[in-house]
């Protein structure tokens, strides 16, 4: 690699860390990092260099309530857990979600596994010709569940089944994303919250992301706003199981 190419790669890494890249370029970088160890190393080096700016600031003690909120979350999640959920601490309209907010539980994983294996009868199932996906979102306090899996062999869509009704505050929407291992995300759309079966289109980037070690993220967001990445309160995170033929 020439010095110029090396500089270009290093500067890409620097701007990724600095945050000046466009969302598309940042997603590309995250994907490249997964397959280019030298680029990942360059990013880590720049994180170290630029973190000095953060280390240089005078410490400011956060209010005690922040730890209390974190501590509440810890009671519902484990370090090796597959998801977390948070509640808006200062939004009374969402306050009850703190209680309701729970990561995908073991039951969810087991149910996702059952879905994966073809259902509780456990009979052999014919493997699809293309990668297929399965996931499940489970809200423990309310028992609300969504079953999510590939809608067809081309995987251009997801089949979503909402098992119950789930109340969403007025002006808000449950927005579903696919999030890759590097933290990059791709919007799928608004998650239906009335009982029924639905089909949601998958973008190319979301489909590509699902082929890797990714997860479903659902955030509570303002209904009038759309973004390619979660912005509001993350309600549930659930792993995506992948089967290859």
């Amino acid at each position: 690699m020439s010095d110029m190419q090396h500089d270009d790669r290093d500067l890409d890494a620097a701007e990724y860390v600095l945050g000046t890249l466009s969302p598309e370029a940042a997603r590309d970088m995250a994907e490249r990092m997964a397959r280019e160890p030298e680029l990942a190393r360059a990013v880590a080096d720049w994180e170290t260099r630029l973190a000095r700016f953060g280390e240089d600031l005078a410490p400011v003690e956060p209010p005690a309530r922040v730890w209390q909120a974190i501590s509440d979350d810890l009671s519902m999640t484990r370090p090796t857990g597959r998801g977390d959920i948070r509640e808006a601490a200062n939004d009374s309209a969402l306050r009850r979600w703190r209680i309701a907010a729970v990561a995908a539980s073991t039951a969810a994983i087991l149910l996702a596994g059952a879905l994966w294996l073809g259902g509780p009868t456990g009979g052999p199932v014919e493997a699809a010709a293309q990668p297929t996906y399965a996931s499940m979102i489970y809200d423990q306090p309310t028992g609300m569940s969504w079953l999510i899996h590939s809608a067809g062999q081309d995987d251009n869509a997801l089949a979503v089944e909402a098992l119950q009704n789930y109340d969403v505050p007025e002006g808000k929407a449950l927005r579903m994303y696919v999030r890759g291992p590097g933290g990059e995300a791709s919007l799928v759309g608004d998650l239906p919250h009335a009982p029924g079966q639905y089909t949601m289109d998958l973008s190319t980037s979301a489909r590509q992301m699902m082929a890797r070690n990714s997860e479903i993220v659902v955030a509570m967001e303002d209904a009038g706003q759309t973004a390619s990445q979660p912005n509001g309160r993350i309600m549930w995170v659930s792993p995506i199981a992948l089967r290859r033929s």
Partner: protein
Amino acid sequence: MAEREQLEAWLVATAQGDEQAFRKLYSATSSQLYSLLLRILRSPERAQDALQDAYVRIWQKAHTYAPERGAPLTWLLSIARYRALDMLRRKQPEVAMPEEPDRVATLLEDEQSLSPLEENENQQSLSAINACLGDLSDEQRQCVLLAYYEGLTHQELAERMDAPLGTVKSWIRRGLLRLRDCLAEEAIS
């Protein structure tokens, strides 16, 4: 601030589900992360939200920390800063914050007087970054600091600096190269 080895030990224990270790990690580092989040988000409420998000993620992802890739505080600050950038990118503040035209100058002044430096190694590091900032042109320095502390994109920087987009991109990239090379020289000397 606790020593690097201590932070690493707490991170390892956190990865194993040790809530006490996580509490100690939080006590030792949260004020630094919160300070950075306040600078970036310019709202205590949003900074506290981001801090909460960051530590929940740290709790869940502690097992992915790799000491050979950087110091624990670097990793923690990066998680917090990426979260803050994510919040900035996805939603503008509901109430616009007053503009602070001399913010970068203030930042630089603050950097001279802030930070009770508790470790000699850290002191050297901070001196190095400040010395190297002085090596950049005014425009390069402002762009890098505005991007770091306020999360401005290329376009936003161009508007803030009242300069063409291409010029701003060039300032950033040249400034970053100069910063990298200067820090490397400082490390050698």
